[in-house]
């Protein structure tokens, strides 16, 4: 491994090299299908739907029309509580483009009551503090949380119809 090729550029030389710019213009409109459509319609009405497989007994969210482990169509719709517990969380100080945030956001995997153990969904935590210290004091794995919904007239059938989950006693 000698005489390795490659010409590293520092910030200054990177700005000087010849570049071509291209902004992707592809647009998509994804078919949600049976399970997710119904789930999103449920959110609009203020409830969280899951599917139950009567063979393995698991209550699954995000819902799908088949049980991926038993590999059969699953059986029934189940409404979950809008309260649950934190399975894991993070306190994130950067945006997707790597710029820093003034106030951190708190992504979390949340198991809603009624779903099977370890069956969680991704969402965010709010009303838990503005600094890392405050947040770590207010929440932990296992902390009980409750959904904070958008006003009914503002809901549009999207995961963001739940604004965030807030810690409760």
């Amino acid at each position: 491994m000698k005489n390795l090729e490659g010409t590293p550029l520092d910030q200054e030389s990177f700005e000087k090299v010849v570049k071509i710019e291209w902004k992707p213009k592809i647009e998509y409109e994804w078919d949600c299908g049976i399970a997710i459509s119904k789930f999103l319609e449920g959110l609009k009405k203020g409830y969280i739907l899951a599917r139950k497989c009567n063979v393995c007994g698991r209550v699954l969210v995000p819902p799908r029309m088949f049980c991926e482990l038993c590999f059969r169509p699953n059986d029934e719709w189940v409404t979950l509580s809008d309260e649950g517990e934190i399975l894991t969380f993070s306190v994130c100080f950067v945006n997707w483009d790597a710029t820093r945030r003034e106030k951190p956001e708190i992504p979390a995997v949340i198991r809603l009551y009624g779903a099977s153990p370890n069956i969680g969904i991704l969402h965010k935590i709010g009303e838990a503090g503005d600094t890392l210290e405050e947040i770590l004091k207010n929440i932990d794995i296992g902390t009980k949380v409750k959904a904070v919904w958008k006003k009914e007239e503002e809901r549009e059938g999207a995961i963001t119809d739940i604004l965030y989950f807030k810690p409760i006693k």
Partner: protein
Amino acid sequence: MARKVGILGAGITKFMRRAKETGKELAFEAAKHALEEAGMDINEIDCVVISTAPDAFDGVHMKGDWLSDGAGAKKKPFMRSFVGGGSGVFSIIHGWYLVSSGFFDKCLIVAEEKMSSCMPHPQGAFNSIYDQFIERPLGVNLLWIFSLEMMRYMKVHKIPLETIALVAVKNKKNGLDHPCTQKGISGEYTVNDILNSEIIAYPVHRLMVSPVTDGAAAMVIAAEHEVKRRTDKPIWIEGVGFCLDTSYWTNRDLYYPKYVEYAARMAYEMAGIKDPRKEIHVVEPYDPFAYKELHHLEGLLLADKGEAPKLLEKGFWDRDTENGIPSSPSGGLLGVGNPIAAAGLMRVIEIYLQLKGEAGKRQVKREIKRGLAQAWGDLMQVGTVVILSK
């Protein structure tokens, strides 16, 4: 039936924050070096395996096709396999099955990554790895999945943050001796340096993350009769394994990478390994984030669940260990850089060099006959494992 497959050559470029070369040019340089070491001309190659991570980095649809001429595949059979971050290690598995099956005798494997083309930041290309229906609308960020997994792993096993930082200290120091690394990626750091770097997504600190990098790596592999004819020091592919877990990643307990365990078991079985802790002598586990190395060492069954951090504190994974298993002697992604697919193949190349005794300052102290490289990818979902032996 299965034919033995061996390695004839390897090539690699520098790993750079931003390369002047295009992706095709990087692929060409790595391929050229691999062919030179193998003493072969491109016309002797039967097929080309191309490995590269999301098309979104380069903004090129069908990126494998686009890279094909740079990778030496003009008017040749070529294929691109793709398992996200696991692709680099998977590329040699891909080449292995094309040769082992008897389909081809000689295969060139080229792994390339040019992440710096993606603006404003390559991290953005990863937003679209999330589910488009119920995750992306939340305003996702790549770091989330890692910080969520790290938190779960740390909390379940009560691992101190200082111990996780030790992985970065070890690998960044090992990386100093790797010819591909650039200043700033490798270096002498203390645990405090790591913990004092900015928190980007707690518990992840900036220096616990491998940096965005451009680079390429390549290997030439061949069937037994070709290998024996061309080299006295053959290195063989003894076992391969790969496994993909459910895409419903929020439906799994993230504290343990079961998919790595299953991939490892597949590779161990193929290699006839009963006790990996005795029979694997050097390991290159995937470490894009510091905790990942420990997480993966447990998945590889080289440590009990929750024990890898304790072994780390005891120096068990150090390069100069005499009774332990040296882990990431190359410096890993934390110490050399992370041009995703190329970084995966770099890990395989490190095992190859270690087994040949050609790793220079990075050569491990203990005697080695067999080594393992592993990568991981997708939504914390896929494990790819390859075992090489003398």
